Each structure stands twice: as structure tokens, then as C-alpha cells.
């Protein structure tokens, strides 16, 4: 499903190019649960953002569902992103002025899902994630773990093919982290591809495959 060929990313400061990702060739299949690991600054987030179409590679090719993303315009990319990709962040990034319910509903608004359908989809997710009681609260009224649950609920509501998660448990204690990981495993079993960045060996264990980065190089 995701296919990277000789992909590189650099930032130029004047004439100087600083490579963050170098010559990455990588294949991720539908239904996989992949963990990306590596020291701080090794380029994990950058790689995730490129795969999630929030950022562009400097060189190389990227095929998503056999479509040449590297040739796409920003608009085409964001269409693709909107239809197939969910994102989960370390710092949750919920929208402060929206309630739990509204946060989860927002992606559906952007996809012009009809009102009744939206209602049932959100109700369904709230139920599955066991947060029905919290639906009218605002993010600041929730614990970190609860916020991340909402963040994941928001990512999966539009039934994406793949979820990218950047250190989803980074701000959580281990019990909360475990709960999130179990949720990912469940979603993966139901067919969603999952790519997560993590610093924790035990979290990485939940995935089927571990990809290691060092100074922008893929370690195999």
C-alpha cells in the first residue's frame, strides 16, 4: 500500500543541505502494524509526516495505493490524505473550543457526511471507545489518556485505511499507554493499517514489524 523508493529529505540553509532522511526504500502492506524507532532527531517524525502527506520529500518516489504521490499537487495530496489517512499525535491536538462529540464529528463534516449518518457514526465510536459519558465535555476537562482516546476516535471515525501515530503514548503513564496499544491492536485486527513512532520497546512489541532509523538512514 505504501511504497517508498530512494526517498530523501533535506533542509537547505544557504548552500548547505542538511539531510534528515537519506535514500529510504520501504514497503508497507495493507493490514500491517509497523513501529518506527530510533534516537531523537533521527527523522522518525519527518518520515511519518511524509508518508501521511503532510510534508513533501525532497527526492525519490512515494506510491500510495499505487498512486504517485510525489507527482501530486498539494490539493491532490490533501484529497488523498482526507480520504484514507488518520493522524494521532503525542500531544493529542484536540480542538479546544469543541466538545468531545464535536471533535470526533469534525472530520465527517469535512467529508460532507449527512447529519443522520454522522450521528450514528459518532455514537458508535463513543460507544466502542467507552467515552459516551464524556461526550459533552471540553478537552481541558479530560485526563491525558482520555484526550488521546478522543484523538484516536477522531482519527478512526472516517474509517481510514491507515493510521499514523507519532508517539501516541509519549505523554501518558504506562497503564494508559497499554490501553491505547490494545486499542491499536484491535483496530489493526479489524483491518486498519497502523504506523506508529515510539521510543518504547514494549509498545513496539505490539506491532508486527519494527523499522529503525539512525541519522536518517534506514537500519535493517
Amino acid at each position: 500500500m505504501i511504497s517508498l523508493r530512494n526517498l530523501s529529505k533535506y533542509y537547505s540553509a544557504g548552500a548547505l543541505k542538511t539531510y534528515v532522511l537519506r535514500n529510504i526504500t520501504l514497503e508497507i502492506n495493507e493490514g500491517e502494524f509497523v513501529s518506527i524507532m530510533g534516537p531523537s532527531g533521527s527523522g522518525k517524525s519527518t518520515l511519518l509526516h511524509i508518508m501521511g502527506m503532510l510534508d513533501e520529500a525532497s527526492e525519490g518516489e512515494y506510491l500510495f495505493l499505487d498512486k504517485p504521490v510525489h507527482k501530486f499537487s498539494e490539493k491532490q495530496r490533501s484529497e488523498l490524505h482526507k480520504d484514507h489517512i488518520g493522524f494521532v499525535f503525542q500531544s493529542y491536538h484536540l480542538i479546544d473550543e469543541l466538545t468531545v462529540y464535536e471533535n470526533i464529528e469534525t472530520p465527517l463534516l469535512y467529508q460532507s457526511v449527512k447529519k443522520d449518518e454522522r450521528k450514528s457514526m459518532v455514537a458508535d465510536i463513543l460507544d466502542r471507545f467507552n467515552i459516551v459519558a464524556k461526550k459533552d465535555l471540553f478537552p481541558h476537562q479530560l485526563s491525558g489518556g482520555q484526550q488521546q482516546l478522543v484523538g484516536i476516535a477522531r482519527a478512526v471515525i472516517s474509517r481510514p485505511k491507515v493510521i499514523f501515530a507519532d508517539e501516541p503514548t509519549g505523554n501518558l503513564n504506562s497503564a494508559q499507554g497499554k490501553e491505547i496499544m490494545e486499542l491499536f491492536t484491535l483496530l489493526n485486527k479489524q483491518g486498519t493499517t497502523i504506523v506508529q513512532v515510539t521510543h518504547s520497546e514494549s509498545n513496539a512489541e505490539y506491532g508486527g514489524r519494527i523499522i529503525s532509523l539512525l541519522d536518517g538512514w534506514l537500519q535493517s
Partner: protein
Amino acid sequence: MLTNHLKIAFRALWRRKFTTGLNVIGLALGMTAFFFLMEFASFHAGFDSFQANADRLFRIVGTTPEGSQDNVSPMMLAMRSQVHGIEAIPTFMTSASGIVTYKPDNASGASQAVTFKEEDVAYSNNDVFKAFTFQFLAGNADLDKPNTMVITASAAQKYFACGENYQRVIGKRLLVANQFAPTEYAVTGVVRNLPENSHLRGTMFFSLQTLANPTNLGDNSWARLVPDNGSAFLTGYLLLRDGTQASSLAKQISELSKKVDPSANITWHLQPIRTIHTGNGFSDPLPNAAALKYVVIAVSIALFVLSLAWINYINLSTAFGLSRAREIGVRKTIGATRGHLVVPHLLECAMLSVAALLLALTSVELLQSYFNSLLGAELHLGYVFQYGIGAYGIGAMLLGAILSGSYVALVLTGVKPIIVLRGNFTRSANGRFVRKTLVIVQFAVSIAFIAGTLIILRQLDFMSHRDLGMNLEQLLVIDGPQIVENNSLSGNPALVFKQEVERLPFVKQVSGSQNIPGQGYNFSAQGIMRPSGHSDDAKQSYKILQADENYFNTYQMTFDQGKGFQKSDNLGGFKFRSVVLNEASVTQLGFKSSSDAVGQFIQWGNPSEKGQRWQICGVVKNYHHKSLHDAIEPIIFLPSAAATGYFSLRVTIENVQANMAVLEALYKKILPGNPFTARFADDIFQKQYENDVRIGNLFAVFSIMAIVIACLGLFGLTAFAAESRRKEIGVRKVLGATDASIIALLSTEFLKLVAIAFVIACPTAFWLMSVWLEDFAYHVELRSGFGVLVFISSGIIAALIAFITIAAQARKTAQANAIESLRYE
């Protein structure tokens, strides 16, 4: 969907109460100013638009190579039969002011006569009421009959205390005593008062036909209403038939008039009545009130103030928008396109605008009477919505909202999600340059306004303290009588009054004159020259003032050479032995000096006739007969012991009220039937500056508004700067920085902008105010220490206000607990 959007927009605004508040207040202030100025502009631009026949109604105006005149003669109007396409010829004769008396005709004589002096009155024909729009409250117009009149509601109430029952007034008779023979008129109709925005004024319209009777004309043969009378004393209008071309009609009339009187060389024009107030463009050669200038100025200031407010909105929104960047980035990662994001922002902008609009309308409502009193006008919001210019104004306001709203929305939604996700979105250079520029613009405008206000105030002060060349203090002016019944025994009662007044213990001096300083002259005259003069000298114009021998010492004017005239210098009628000149006349007549002039002769008309050759007995030093707007003109004073137009009394300061009562009683006794009007000479003189004082007030108000708006913006921006440098400030404090040094740190950045604004504002304000000052023949000099002082103090005032604004905000940040701000990050 919309309600959802609205709800979210409302929450977003509510959550950022601080910025929202600043935005609403700033916008509301700008809109309030905008509405006031647009009222003013619309009022003037819409003059006479209420006339139903405005498109077909023209004033007849003539131009000669020397200038223009808006008067016509009966001879001129008699040409009606020879031109086609005219529906009506409304005609006025405005030299009608006089004393109007109502004597209730109940036999017992219990009620008192009601008497007033009326200035705003005219003779007119019945066509006036056909062509112009009048609303009759009772009766109708029947002015083609002699001795009839139409009066306005306010006049009806004044004389007949009729309340709303105007029907009662019909048939009542008023006695009018003016320069014509005293005549009675019966009221045939009562009309609603003319609206404020009518160039046509008037509270009473007497039938012009009355003057066709020679008995009623008195000895004013110039006003004979016969077709061969060529003297131009009428104001004529034409109501054209539908489809008549005004320009071709004007040409026809001009040709006819040249045939009738080839020497006159007058070209006649038909002036559309709507251009009488504004002028047809800036350099309309036909006489007009030139109000277009004010319309343009008001609209420009209105748009300027409004843009200041929108600038504020843009500034605050993009600055604080950074804190919204995260939200926007997140929304993009969950599938929002730019379109999705722009709509809610526009909605927020719309909600802000509506809130500001409501606030502005409320303030306009509350402050209207205050604004009106500043301006000395009766304005209301209705004007804005009544005429075209208001519609453009509202359009401009909408456009402003849409443009600035869209700009803000585009800037904010342009955030790339990646920036957000990287977590380094706390500061962005995005739009900082724009924001700085906008702050500079705001302060430049504020400084220019402050400088303008200071200059106007200084000029007003200059005018009220300038040595006028005479002494107007404790000088009382009593209007002379209009109704004078000569008594064969004691002579002219007006002169009797003057003699009696002179005997009063609190009166030091009395002078009678036909006009007074601060008001005007008798008339202007050409053809006055030295016997040796060149024929071209006859074209020079002189102001003529008839006064008695006490005029100069009562006003405490000083003689440069010679002395004033004697009673006996008047040889009866319009014949004089000696006259007095002012210095300006001496120069214009071509004398080398005052001493050169005294004893010499000047002549007017035929010098061989007695009393047309005048000896100069004295030269009075130049004094300001009119306001400092006008240069001192050449004046010739003619001796007239019988001048009783005005009595000027030098009085003692004590018991002014009691003395006034004594004077009034005396006046009523000797001059019955005349209303007693007494004013202080310096009030009369200062009244000339009424408009200037109003402009000063307006400027003061708008400079306050401009600076408040600018400061609101600055306040918000400082808050933002402090917020985004919170961490830096925390670190500096831990390292031992004092509060003061931190305030300085935050202030310098903004004060630099104020400094740049100052550099821009000074030349602009200098130029604009120089133009304004050119309107005064005598004015303060900007190219002087005073000018430098004004500009520097405007800069300092703006900088000080800016600094206080910044410091108030910066202090809060500086004093915040350093450790806390570090932990916050």
C-alpha cells in the same frame, strides 16, 4: 450546518474575550465616527434633493466678464412670453427684513401686540409654491393677489400661539414694517418648516404682487414691478417643462437679453438647484456655497477612520491568529480544506462586525445631540440612508468588512499543518511586516490629527487675542429701530433715543452707525478717485460705512493723521464736506502717506456738484472691521449724524442686568413697536469664528477617536508580543532583569514605529494645515518656533499615550512570576 458554524464562531470569539473586546470596541468606534461623518456628508451632498421637481428646477444666474450675479430684473423676467418650455417662474425678493407685528383685534385690547424682527423673510409670487416642494398644514398659497402671505409652522406658533391648530391662523393679519411702506398681509396658508437641507430659507412669504401698488412701495422706485424696470433686485428660478433643454434655453435667454440691453453683456445660465449648495464641481463659476469641499473632506476622513478600525482588526486578528494556527493545522490534518476553514473565519468576522455595528448605532443614537451641538447642525442617521452617497458609504463599509475579513481568513488558513505538528508555531514572521506598517499608518494619522487640532486651537486663540485696532470690551450694540414715526415736535425718535441714552450715568459714549464691526459695511462702491486719478482708478472698490461723529472714539480707534469729522460735514442727503479714510484706502488711492492724504480731496460722481468732492479730514489706523479671515479692506467713512442702524454704547461693568432693563424700557418708550435687541460687540465679532470653532471641536473629537483606535490596536499587539516573549522574559528575570528594563524592552520596539509614524505625519500635516490656514488673511506661522513646537508636542503626545498603553500591558508581563512563565512553556 450554519447554526453549527455560528455556535462555533461564537465560542471562538467568546474564548478570546480580550481580542474580541478590543476588536469590537475598535470597530464600533470607527463605525461611529464613520456614521457621523457620513451624516454630515450626506446632509450637504443631498441638499435640495427633497425637491420633487429638482431635475427641472433652475436658478437664473448671470455672468459678466467681471463676475457673476444671481439677481435678475423685472425686465429680464418679462421675456417669459418670448421663450418656450417654461412651466413656472418662481420669483423672490429677499430685501424684506423688518419688523412684523400681530395686533390681536379683540375690542377690549387685553392681549398685547406680538412683535419680532424678522430676517428670514421674502416677497414671492405664487409660482414659488407650484415649483418648490412645500407641505401645507392649512390653507394654500394665493400670492398672486396683493396683501396675502404664507408662513411656516414655527412662525405661526410664534405669533399666534396656535399649537398644532394651524387652521386657526388662516385669515389672520400681520403688519410688516420694512424699507417699504408698512403694509398688512393676511395669512392664506401655513406650511411645514423648510427642511434643514434646503438652500431656500424663509419663515414668511409675502405676496410680491403687493409691491405692484406704488403706495406700498414707498419711495423705493427701484423695486417697481414693471417690465421696463432694469434694476436687478429679484431672485429668479425657472421650472422647465419636461423635455426642455436647460442649456439651449439659457442660450435663448442670453441672446434675447443682449437684444434688449446690448450694453449689459450678461450671459445667462440655468443653475440646477441641487448644485447651488455643493457647486457643480470644485471650480463652478456660478455662485454656490462650495459645500462639495466639505463633502469630500468628510467622506475622506470617514473612510480613513473606518480603515483605521479595519486595520486594527487585521492587526489584532493576525497577531493573535498565531494561537489559532495550531487549531487550523489540526483541522487540516483531519481533512479540512482551505474552503472549510475560511467560512468559519468569515463568519467570525461577520459576527464581530454585526456586534460592532450594533454598538456603533447605539452610540450614534446616544451621542447624536452632542455631535450636533459641536457642529451646530441638526443631523440624524436618516440622512445617511436617504441619499446616494450614504449608500456608497454603506457599500464601502461592507467592502471593508469583506476585504479585511478575507485577508485575515486567508492569512490564518494559510498555515501549513506541518509547522503546527512540529510544535514550533509560537512565533511566526508571517504578517509581521504588514502589522508594523499598519501600526505606523495608524499613528501617522493620529499624530497628524493631533497636530491639526493644536494648530486650529492656536489659530483660534491667536484670533481671539489679536489686537484688533479697536476696543470691543464693554461695548453694547443695540439694533436701531425699523419702525420710526417722525414726530414733528421732537424730530427723529431714534435720535431722541440716542440723546437720552447718552445722558444715562452708566453710558460713557454712544455712537450711531449704519453697520458695525464684525458684521459688515453699508455697501461697496467703485468710481471713487483722486481728482488727478487715472480712469483705471475708477475700477477700484471701496467699502463705505456711514457713521456719526462719535464712531471712532466710541470704538477707541486711533487716528494716524488728522481727526474725525464733525456733524456739520454732512451736507444733507448723500453730500459730504469731509470724510475719514483708513490706511488701506490711503494706499489704494495712491497717497504716499497718511499725512500726504489729510487735507486732500477725493471725488465720487460729478465733482462740480456740491458735496461730491470730499476733503479727507483724517486717516484712522487700520483696524479689523471683519474677522481675521479677511484682509483689511479700504474703507471710507461718511459722516452721518442721522445714522441709526445700530447704536454702540460704551458702558460700565457694574449692574449690567439692571442697566439693560433701563435701556430696554427707554427703547420701548421712545421707539414703540420695535423689538429691543442688545448684544455685546465682542460676541458679535467672535460669532464670525463660529465655524472655525466647530471645525476645531470636530478635529479634537476625531483626533481623540483616532488615537483611541490606534491605542486599542497597540494594546492588543503589546499583549501579543508579551505573550509570545513570555519565556524570554522569564529567563531574563531569572538572570536578574528589573521590571523597568523589561518594560523598556517591550516598549522600544513599538515606540520605534511611533517614531517612523511621526516622520511621515509631520510633512503631511504641515501641508494640510498650511492649506487650512490660507483661509485666514492673518494666521499663525507654521514655519516658526511655534510650528516646530506643535509637531514635536504632537509626536510627544502620541508617543506618551502609546508608551502608557504599552507599559500598562508590559508591566503585567514583567511582574508575572518568572518561574511560572517558564513552567508554562
